[in-house]
């Protein structure tokens, strides 16, 4: 084992056989951690860590001593005794050459290009490229693909394409839909849909825009919405399904502009589905309820504490999009209620069955925390299949319902509360839409709706379908005046007890 040594930029290290130069340099910190983004040391276009190696852009070439040619660091496996220079004069000249070639036919329409500011071509040309071009011929124009809608999510501008073929490999290796391919050859090579009469069919189209190093494939939802350099970034967790993909939230002021997947090898790898990617719209939707339904009562816990004191039994219903912390608070509340007041109190969750929807990430359960609630020994109120609950047939005067963005309350639940549990008073907590409020108000036992916070507006954790608990943090900038007025579930229910005494 002793003879596996390699020197990269003067740093001597050992390697395991089969490791490529790029992998080693990433491990020892010569190249950046986040390797599908722009890297100043070993530049790359066609290489993406989640895809197979193509070795075609020739941008990651490095100099290996005693080798006649420059080698591509993405595809060259380390050999014992190799001495590698990642930034020598020869390497810089080669990269400058590649940049010159790539920019020959590139439209250089950066002012109106959506990728501008996060474009590999811009970055690497700034670093290596020639400032001027010697090319005097007309540029290549793909007449039919200058602005071509490949689907409702993706727009192609073929003139900007640098033919790295990440997208083609993505559609064959990751989604396995094979809906993109390269037509023709040489400088006429053109990206097209496999069947031109159809659109893209995968559920991961947003990833195409992510992995495209230039502005050839752009995501329609974000297209022309914002210049990327105005965006702030914070890590979070997608709450659209039980997978819990790791994301980066891009926002300016109190508006979220997009979600970008963040690498986590145990959860979502580099990818994320489109419905998750677009789920940020729900947070800032027009019909979200921000204020207490009972407008004349400004201290919302007062009527609740009265109701608690006057009730004989309590039922807490948690939707599966409540965070672990919220659920724990409510369980504590339930225990204290039955312990202090000596009355019956039960806690159940409402949710659906879970299963995988495809070979990648999509899950049937569209809520983030079913597993977390199960781990807290909360059982299901009713099984949607059998439509009958296993719990005792008791009546509850007071019902506390907690739900967030991902679940909707339906008539089935409310009529069950009315007839089966003989509910007299219902307090609803969480994120509701206006039509949900209307539905609630049509029931006489509905008392009050207390608005809540979404994933991005609170601290907490979700436990995903594979039993991985992931925490998320509040994004301070999103806390505008409307949100600031909303207390968290934890705050409300801790306060009630102190008022009780």
């Amino acid at each position: 084992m002793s003879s596996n040594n390699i020197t990269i930029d003067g740093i001597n290290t050992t390697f395991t056989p089969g490791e490529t130069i790029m992998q080693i340099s990433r491990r020892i910190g010569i190249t950046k951690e986040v390797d599908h983004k722009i890297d100043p040391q070993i530049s790359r276009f066609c290489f993406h860590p989640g895809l197979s190696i193509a070795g075609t852009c020739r941008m990651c070439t490095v100099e290996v001593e005693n080798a006649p040619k420059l080698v591509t660091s993405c595809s060259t496996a380390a050999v014992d005794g190799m001495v590698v220079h990642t930034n020598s004069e020869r390497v810089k000249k080669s990269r400058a050459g590649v940049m010159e070639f790539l920019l020959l036919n590139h439209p250089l329409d950066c002012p109106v290009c959506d990728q501008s500011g996060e474009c590999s071509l811009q970055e690497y040309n700034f670093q290596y490229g020639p400032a001027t071009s010697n090319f005097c011929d007309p540029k290549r124009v793909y007449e039919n693909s200058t602005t071509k809608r490949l689907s409702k999510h993706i727009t192609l501008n073929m003139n900007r394409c640098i033919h790295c073929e990440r997208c083609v490999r993505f559609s064959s290796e990751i989604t396995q839909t094979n809906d993109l391919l390269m037509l023709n050859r040489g400088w006429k090579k053109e990206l097209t849909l496999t069947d031109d009469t159809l659109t893209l069919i995968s559920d991961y189209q947003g990833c195409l825009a992510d992995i495209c190093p230039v502005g050839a494939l752009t995501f329609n939802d974000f297209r022309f919405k914002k210049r990327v350099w105005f965006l702030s970034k914070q890590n979070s967790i997608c709450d659209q399904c039980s997978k819990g993909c790791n994301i980066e939230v891009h926002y300016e002021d109190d508006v979220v502009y997009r979600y970008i997947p963040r690498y986590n090898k145990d959860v979502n790898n580099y990818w994320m589905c489109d419905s998750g990617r677009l789920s940020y719209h729900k947070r800032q939707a027009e019909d979200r309820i921000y204020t207490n339904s009972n407008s004349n009562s400004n201290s919302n816990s007062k009527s609740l504490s009265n109701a608690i004191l006057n009730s004989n039994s309590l039922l807490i219903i948690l939707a599966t999009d409540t965070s672990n912390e919220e659920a724990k608070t409510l369980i504590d509340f339930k225990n204290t209620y039955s312990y202090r007041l000596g009355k019956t109190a039960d806690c159940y969750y409402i949710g659906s069955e879970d299963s995988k929807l495809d070979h990648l990430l999509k899950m049937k359960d569209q809520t983030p925390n079913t597993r977390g609630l199960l781990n807290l020994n909360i059982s299901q109120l009713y099984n949607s299949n059998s439509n009958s609950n296993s719990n005792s047939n008791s009546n509850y005067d007071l019902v506390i319902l907690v739900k967030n963005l991902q679940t909707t309350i339906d008539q089935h639940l409310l009529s069950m509360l009315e007839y089966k549990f003989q509910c007299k008073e219902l307090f609803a907590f969480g994120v509701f839409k206006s039509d949900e409020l209307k539905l609630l108000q049509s029931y006489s036992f509905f008392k009050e709706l207390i608005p809540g916070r979404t994933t991005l507006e609170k601290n907490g954790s979700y436990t995903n379908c594979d039993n991985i608990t992931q925490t998320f943090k509040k994004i301070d900038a999103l806390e505008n005046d409307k949100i600031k007025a909303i207390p968290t579930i934890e705050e409300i229910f801790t306060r009630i007890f102190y008022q009780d005494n």
Partner: protein
Amino acid sequence: MIKMSVIEPILTKYIGKKDYLSIKKVLNEMNPADVIQDVKKSNLRGRGGAGFPTGIKWSVMPVIPKEESKEKSNKEITPITLRYLVCNADEGEPGTFKDRFIIGKMPHLLIEGMLIAAYAIGARVGYIYIRGEFASEYRILKNAIEEAYQENYLGENVFSKFLNTNKNFSFDLHLYRGAGAYICGEETALLNSLEGKRGEPRIKPPYPAKFGAFGKSTCINNVETLATVPAIINIGAEKYAKYGTAKSGGTRLFSLSGHIQNPGVYEFPLSIKLKDLINHCGGVKDGKKLKAVIPGGGSAPILTAEEIDTLDLGVDYDSLAAAGTMAGSGGIILLDETTCIVEAASVLLKFYEHESCGQCSQCREGSHWLARLFHRIEKGEAEMKELDLIEHICSNMSMQTICAFADAVVGPARSSIKKFRSEFEEHIRIKCCPFKKQKEVSHVL
């Protein structure tokens, strides 16, 4: 079309014969290692273009484990012994037409050569990847393969009637027609195309000997290389090697075209000098003065007439490499004094622009740029400073890509500007092609 050389023909005397003498000799008297040893001794080098020694190519195929080779059960092909022999018949190099000639006139020679090669490397399945445009040759070869199957020269237990020993050898041969891409002559692009993928070269390593067609060990040889093997077996490796030079053994087929008096396919020993070779073929057409020679197919850097005279160049791999060009595919194109070098290079570059597979950045964009630039120079629309740009583009293209295609583009571009710069300058100075101008004038007169 066939022009015999004045020296005793070795390969070409097999025309029309279906007796398969060499393979019978191999199966009766030799074991695979002997065959490889003989081919090594013959100094046979790949006739496709790169000139890699064939014996070494065969010997680097992974060794079949002893127990596996002992059984030699024909029906049960285990994954370890499954390997392919692929014949590269995608002859697309500009100015080369020798493989077409072999397939058209002597298809059985190729089949026999493949049988011997397959026996040597232990392959039981072979493919011939034939260029899509070779329509009649495809039919001829298909017929020949069918004939061979009928005679039990191909298939299960071939030549069982003729064998004295109880050796079993089976070989299945498939014919696959390409779709007309020059790049599929590159061995790994050929494999991709054979597998039904885009014909784009693969990253090496892994080399085909380790990871070839369908992921199995594969040996890829040119048509002429394989067709030469029966002759080597028949006349003996030492005798064959003597026809050539120390490092390049034997004879070779040359395709002569351009301004040559008697164009065609010729067989010459590799020890011949280029000047003599041209004279044997009748010299320059109509007794004109020779201006330049492209010695190894379109990718080979151009040679001036003076270089050929003063260096007294041979046609073997090493002497042409020493002169800064290459023996390539053996396609010799003569250009006489009336030829415009800029136009000739421009035509070649147009071809390469069209045929670049478009994988690597430098080749995709560079071949296009060069073709445009040469076209403008030829039309007299370029500026003087752009001449230096050619070397700039070439230096950024050569030795930078996955396969040798970019270097093939650089070959004619770089050598023509280096050796005929004054002609380029004249184009720019008088703002048109001087040769066309002369032609026009003579036409008017």
